[in-house]
């Protein structure tokens, strides 16, 4: 029995992708520019360079020298990880895979000319462009808050100094004080992220400041892994956490950073720490490239991750609007592999295979109490559609929860090696 590839080719061809037609015949090496060296961009750059064996010229545009993962940054806040354990550098990508790291912000994209302009004025030409800038915040989504207030009321939703600020604020809270989180509306990066954070803050306060209170102001009716978090909060942090949902006015919230006040539906609350996670949209450069929709995200072709607006531009990770996949590091990594496979086939004529995606998100509720949720996905013409899923159950025994946590450590080691080499 041999493999029958006709079926695979059929699927891809039907999507209208350019198949096995080296786009740059006769020219020097085909060039791919990747904007953003996070979970999506770095994975895509690495797979393109590694699997094409040097046949594609890959430039990664990323201003930072060190990338701090948002994933596991909550565990740093909880005291389960060192800050430095979140740090990843690009030396394997440049050293082992010959990727060029352009250390600058991309400021503009000229899709007709096929060029990207960097903050220093440098212009890079591309045959294919990958945009993976993560998220930016929607201005004015939490009245009273903007980025200039982020040192007083941190978002800590892009990891790095923001995460450190939030952690030190939590640790410095006065005895019996109040920690407040303003949670974001859908869609946003890492659906269980805010609730894992609440758990980690509670873990710290339970040990250091057990009479402190946590106020969760949440504009959503329901949220990811809700039953699991609620069970865990009751078990480990009983009486500490109060969630105010939209039925009590949480959709109508304003903050006053100077006074350290949160106004919920007209009611003024004095708080000691306020973690504001605003509404989100695709990273700015996606909009500058003209590939976003009116909601601020970039629609893509589910079979390839190519932009609906331009088949030579691919959008990965949080910035993309693809359908059912949550905005997670796992998803971004999964999407990047599909895009790299498609781009290689378009530029070098390598084989194309049908798109396959999956995601698993672990969350830590307390020491050795880990839970997970995951799904697998397939591409339909309309969207990336969920086909199968699972979630941890309430009432699981302690051994299984501990094993789930240990798995998440294995995943972190695995995925960061897969992203950064």
């Amino acid at each position, binding site marked *: 029995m041999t493999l029958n590839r006709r079926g695979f080719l059929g699927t891809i061809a039907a999507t209208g992708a350019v198949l096995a037609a080296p786009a740059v015949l006769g020219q020097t090496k085909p060039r791919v520019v990747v904007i953003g060296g996070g979970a999506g961009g770095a994975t895509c750059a690495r797979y393109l360079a590694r699997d094409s064996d040097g046949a594609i010229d890959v430039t990664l545009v990323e201003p930072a020298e060190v990338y701090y993962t948002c994933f596991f940054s909550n565990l740093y806040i909880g005291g389960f990880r060192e800050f430095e354990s979140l740090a990843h550098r690009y030396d394997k990508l440049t050293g082992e895979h010959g990727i060029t790291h352009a250390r600058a912000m991309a400021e503009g994209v000229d899709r007709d000319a096929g060029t990207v302009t960097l903050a220093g004025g440098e212009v890079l030409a591309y045959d294919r462009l990958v945009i993976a800038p993560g998220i930016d915040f929607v201005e004015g989504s939490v009245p009273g808050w903007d980025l200039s207030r982020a040192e007083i009321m941190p978002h800590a939703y892009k990891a790095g100094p923001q995460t450190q600020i939030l952690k030190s604020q939590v640790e410095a809270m006065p005895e019996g004080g109040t920690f407040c989180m303003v949670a974001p509306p859908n869609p946003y990066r890492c659906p269980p992220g805010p609730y894992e954070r609440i758990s980690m803050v509670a873990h710290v306060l339970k040990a250091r400041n057990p009479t402190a209170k946590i106020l969760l102001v949440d504009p959503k009716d329901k949220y990811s892994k809700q039953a699991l978090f609620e069970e865990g909060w009751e078990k480990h942090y009983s009486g500490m956490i109060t969630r105010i949902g939209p039925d009590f006015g949480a959709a109508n919230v304003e903050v006053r950073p100077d006074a350290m006040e949160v106004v919920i539906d007209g009611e003024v609350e004095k708080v000691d720490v306020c973690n504001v996670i605003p509404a989100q949209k695709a990273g700015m450069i996606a909009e500058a490239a003209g590939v976003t929709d009116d909601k601020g995200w970039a629609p893509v072709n589910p079979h390839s991750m190519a932009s609906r607006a331009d088949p030579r531009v691919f959008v990965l990770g949080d910035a993309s609007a693809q359908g059912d996949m949550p905005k997670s590091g796992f998803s971004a990594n999964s999407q990047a592999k599909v895009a790299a496979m498609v781009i290689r086939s378009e530029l070098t004529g390598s084989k194309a295979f049908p798109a396959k995606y999956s995601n698993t998100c672990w969350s830590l509720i307390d020491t050795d109490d880990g839970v997970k949720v995951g799904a697998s996905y397939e591409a339909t013409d309309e969207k990336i559609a969920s086909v199968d899923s699972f979630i941890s159950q309430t009432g699981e025994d302690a051994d299984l929860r501990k094993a789930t946590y240990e798995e998440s450590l*294995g995943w972190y080691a695995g995925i960061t090696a897969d992203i950064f080499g």
Partner: protein
Amino acid sequence: MAGRGSINLAFRLALVSALGATALPAAEIGDAGNGAVIWGDCAGCHEIGPEAKNAIGPKLNGIFGRRAAGLPDFDYSKSLTRAGRDGVVWTLETLDAYIANPRTFASGTRMSYPGLDDPGKRADLLAFLRDFSDRPRDIPEAAPTARRTLPELPPDILALQGDPEFGEYLASECQACHQASGADEGIPSITLWPEENFVLAMHAYKQKLRPHPVMQMMAGRLTEEEIAALAAYFATLTE
């Protein structure tokens, strides 16, 4: 998705179960008397009976219905412990698969026993083991599903040639969790396995014989060609 391949597999497994069922006396698991002789293969490491103690391997009294790696006073491998924690319980079905190839359930098992290929001999041995369980009468003489065990995957599935390029693409999905370097932190290593063991392990998840929600989902949508391609890729992967 898994469409063509999995329908095929289900069909073939059904065929196998039909054949298996007629090849053996339908009313009994097997012949316990023969099983006592085959037990000689196990007796170097295991004890069974009223006086049994743990030896190189754990004592096997009352093995039916026991959780894998379930004796508190035996030092099991990490791999079998994980299987137990995930919920593997010893039944006709799971024991049959374990004895056929211990690596189906636990790659890193310390039971260095190559496996018993002959389904008839396994059935006899299971009948023997059943006599030493706490309530043999509660264990069905012949569970209809007992014959539907993975090691009976038709040889052409085990022998499928994997396409390395396809394997490489498929494997990228696995490497979000399983490290290409073979490192083993919290998630087991899957590199450099004999291809057949790999195929068996994946089918054990696919058929939900081996519990674990992530792996059941991952394996559940793979066709047999895809599993073969993955086995071939990981079998030689070194970094």
